[in-house]
C-alpha cells in the first residue's frame, strides 16, 4: 500500500509544466527583480 502511494505521489511530479505557467511565473519573477532595481 505504501509503495503504491509513493508511486502515485511520484507520478504527480512535475506538478505543472505548461507554457502558460512558465509565462506567469517569469512575469512575477521579472516584477520582483524590477522592484529590487527600482528600490536600489
Amino acid at each position, binding site marked *: 500500500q505504501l509503495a503504491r502511494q509513493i508511486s502515485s505521489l511520484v507520478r504527480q*511530479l*512535475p*506538478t*505543472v*509544466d505548461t507554457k502558460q505557467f512558465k509565462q506567469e*511565473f517569469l512575469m*512575477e*519573477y521579472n516584477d*520582483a527583480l524590477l*522592484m*529590487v532595481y*527600482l*528600490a*536600489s
Partner: protein
Amino acid sequence: EVDAIFKYDEVQQSAIQAQKPWTKDPHYFKHVKVSALALLKMAMHCRSGGNLEVMGMMQGKTVGDTFIVMDSFALPVEGTETRVNAQAEAYEYMVEFVQTSKQVGRLENVVGWYHSHPGYGCWMSGIDCSTQMLNQQYQEPFLAIIIDPIRTVAAGKVEIGAFRTYPEGYKPPDEPASEYQTIPLSKIEDFGVHAKQYYSLDVSFFKSSLDSSLLSLLWNKYWVNTLSSSPLIGNRDFVAGQISDLAEKLEQADGQLVHSGRAGSFFTPAERKKDDSQLTKISHDATKMTVEQIKDITSQVIKDLLFN
C-alpha cells in the same frame, strides 16, 4: 506554573479594582500578555474583515502593571474609523455576552477592545484616541489593541500594537522614538497629530500546556500550508497600494528637495535635515517592501525547484 496564569482570583481582582493604582500614574500599565487563544481569535477575526475595519472586545485581568488578555470576542459592528465609539451599537450584545460568559465559567471581565487597521499599520487615529479616552474614563482598567491583518500576511508575523491614552491635558514626558513603521500618505496627518496622546505597551504572548501540545500537533501539518500558499498573489492589491503611496511620497519629497536644492543657502540646517529624513523614510519603506517581495519570490523559486 505555565498554567497558573490562567487561574482567576476574584478576591485579588476586586482588591485591584478598589485600589485603582492607574489613577495615580497615567503611565502605570506597561506590559500586555496575550494568550495564544485570544491572539488567534483576534487575528482571524481581523483577517476575515478584509479591507473593512472590524472590532471586538477582550476579556482578562490585570496583575500589577500588566494586562493579561485571556480571551476575545468579535462585535457585530463595522467601520470603526467612521465614528467615535462604534462600540455603542453593540452594548446590548456585549452585556449579554459577558453575562453568558460568566455562566459558562469565563469569569474574567472585559479589559479592553481591539480593532483592525487593514494595511495602514498599528497606531491610534484621532477617533481611536477619542474612543479610548472615553473608555478609560468609564471602564478602567481598559486597553486598546490594534491589529493589521494585511501587513501580518505580508510580513509573515502578527502586526499588533497595544495602547493606552493619556488623560486630557496631560503632557507626557519625552519618550524614545518607537520602532519605525510605514504610514500611508493619506493617514500621516492623523498619525502625527495624535501621536503624543497615547503610549504603547510592550506585548508578549503566552500559552497553556494544552495549547502547546495542540500547536505542536498542528505544526506537523503547517508546512503544507506554507508550501501551498503564495503571498505574491494574495498581497497584490496591498503591494500595488504601497507602491502607489511610495510614488506619491516621492513626488512630495522631490518637490521639497528641488526647493531646498536651489535655494539651499536660505534653509537652515534643521530644515535640510528634515528633507533628508523624509527621503530616508521613503527609502526605508521601499527597502522593506522589496525585501518582502524577495522573500515571496524566493519561496516561489524554491517551490519551482522542488515540485517542477
